[in-house]
């Protein structure tokens, strides 16, 4: 790869604009280059695995760039996952830990030989990246990527769009957004908090053009933000992914913001960054472009990515003999496009009848009294499973369990009737604005 970050920083040295706005502070390329030259990592060798605990602040970004230039294997982590750091260090075969600008040697208590995939990557003299899965279905998996193909897509990055990034330092989407902006020389804003009103004010004040977000955030915004009081004329594109979007919500936003383009994204850490093409405006059908391939087996999406991970460091190889990965996402097909309808693992089996809880959620969200809903399966001795609901009602509304049941039975057969409805007040989404699911 014929680039290094030092050269890119030099290329944009005279750019006067802020590259990053984070923690209410602006950072220019020149600030980063200055810090780059001052930062000493001479004790670390090429090929070492380095856990970097940080955020998109000046120091963490500079360490990240320097470690990649040195061809290290970086494990970006955030302080939010502190309780799991030791597990991460052990499972990523970490040699060094960098936290608060201090470089500390890590002595493993369990791994005394290196992982063959790490050894293989070292022989190529490529930088690497280790990210962890969220661990919703078991222990977090250590996912190893070769950074050489990861960066290929950024070399010709030229779309300069001021971007607001929700995703964090330890997430492939956060790194993707950061590096694209970095290579293209465009401004990126990392918000200090993630409450809808704050975010939309920031979009207005910083003249944000691109907002990558989640359906949950859009749903919460619809219920709590007075958009008529905001000037969002700079906003050109909203992308949404990571979970299902219901058509009624998408339609509401598209009617409200006719000038904004809404696009669905799709990705999995194991598969790297995929090129996604939307069928058309107003459609939730997408397809995968570039050199990646997909096939649908029994309604489940399988993908062969152009640049997938090298493998897991603490779990068995998930690819089949032809290199396809079972995403466990359920889809419906239309020509070369598909629409995600749910997760295989979310399906509730009631007396042998399989029910997709997302259908029920999407319908319930058409009820104006309901702000948020999660439908999930619970064990039942008679039918195997039944459906339960956690519902968050709009503050200005009242309703009852009987009213909700009547509403459901107006549309669905009795099998969809929940056996328990809980009215909840607390949030039902995580720090990435993705819904919690009880059966994960």
């Amino acid at each position, binding site marked *: 790869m014929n680039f290094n970050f030092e050269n890119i920083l030099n290329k944009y040295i005279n750019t006067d604009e802020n590259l990053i706005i984070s923690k209410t502070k602006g950072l220019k390329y020149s600030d980063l280059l200055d810090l780059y030259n001052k930062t000493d990592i001479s004790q670390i060798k090429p090929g070492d695995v380095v856990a970097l605990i940080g955020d998109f602040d000046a120091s963490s970004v500079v360490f990240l760039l320097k470690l990649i230039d040195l061809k290290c294997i970086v494990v970006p982590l955030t302080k939010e996952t502190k309780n799991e750091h030791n597990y991460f260090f052990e499972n990523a075969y970490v040699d060094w830990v960098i936290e608060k600008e201090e470089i500390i040697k890590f002595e493993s208590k369990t791994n005394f030989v290196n992982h063959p995939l790490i050894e293989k990557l070292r022989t190529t003299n490529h930088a690497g990246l280790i990210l962890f899965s969220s661990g919703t279905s078991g222990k977090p998996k250590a996912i190893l990527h070769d950074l050489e193909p990861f960066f290929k897509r950024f070399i010709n990055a030229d779309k300069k769009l001021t971007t607001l990034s929700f995703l964090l330092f330890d997430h492939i989407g956060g790194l993707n957004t950061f590096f694209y902006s970095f290579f293209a020389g465009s401004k990126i804003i990392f918000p200090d908090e993630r409450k809808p009103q704050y975010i939309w004010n920031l979009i207005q004040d910083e003249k944000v053009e691109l907002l990558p977000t989640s359906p949950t955030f859009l749903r919460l915004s619809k219920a709590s933000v007075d958009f008529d009081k905001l000037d969002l004329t700079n906003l050109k594109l909203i992308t949404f992914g990571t979970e299902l979007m219901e058509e009624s919500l998408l339609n509401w936003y598209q009617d409200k913001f006719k000038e904004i383009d809404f696009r669905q994204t799709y990705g999995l850490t194991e598969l790297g960054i995929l090129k996604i093409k939307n069928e058309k405006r107003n459609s939730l059908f997408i397809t995968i472009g570039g050199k990646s391939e997909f096939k649908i087996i029994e309604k489940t999406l399988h993908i062969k990515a152009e640049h997938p991970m090298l493998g897991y460091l603490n779990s068995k190889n998930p690819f089949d003999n032809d290199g396809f990965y079972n995403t466990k996402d359920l889809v419906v097909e239309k020509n070369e496009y598909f629409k995600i309808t749910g997760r295989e693992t979310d399906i509730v089996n009631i007396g042998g009848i399989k029910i997709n809880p997302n259908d029920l959620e999407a319908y319930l969200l058409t009820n104006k009294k309901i702000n948020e809903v999660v439908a999930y399966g619970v064990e039942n001795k008679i039918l195997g499973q039944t459906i339960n609901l956690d519902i968050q009602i709009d503050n200005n509304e009242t309703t009852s369990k009987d009213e909700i049941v009547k509403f459901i039975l107006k549309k669905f057969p009795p099998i969809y009737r929940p*056996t328990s409805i809980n009215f909840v007040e607390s949030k039902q989404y995580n720090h990435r604005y993705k819904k919690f699911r009880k059966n994960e």
Partner: protein
Amino acid sequence: MNKDKILDLINTSIDKISKEFDINLNKKNDKIFVYGENGNFDSMMLVVLLAEIEEDLLLNYKKEVSLTSDKAMAKTTPFESNISILDLIIESLN
């Protein structure tokens, strides 16, 4: 809590769920048939009814009862009628 109050609670729930699913009840004196040869509830309706009764017991009398415990499920026709469900609850509370 006495037996009559529990039976009232069961009967109210049976009445409510039968209306919700729009089915006729088969009654003989004080006995209302629920699930089985003479009852008109299907398995889904039964599950909903049991959940409703469990919730009402908890909300109104702070009593946590599982009508689908291994012990209950081991019985012959435990959900045949309001009376057999009453027996399950009494047994579980003792």
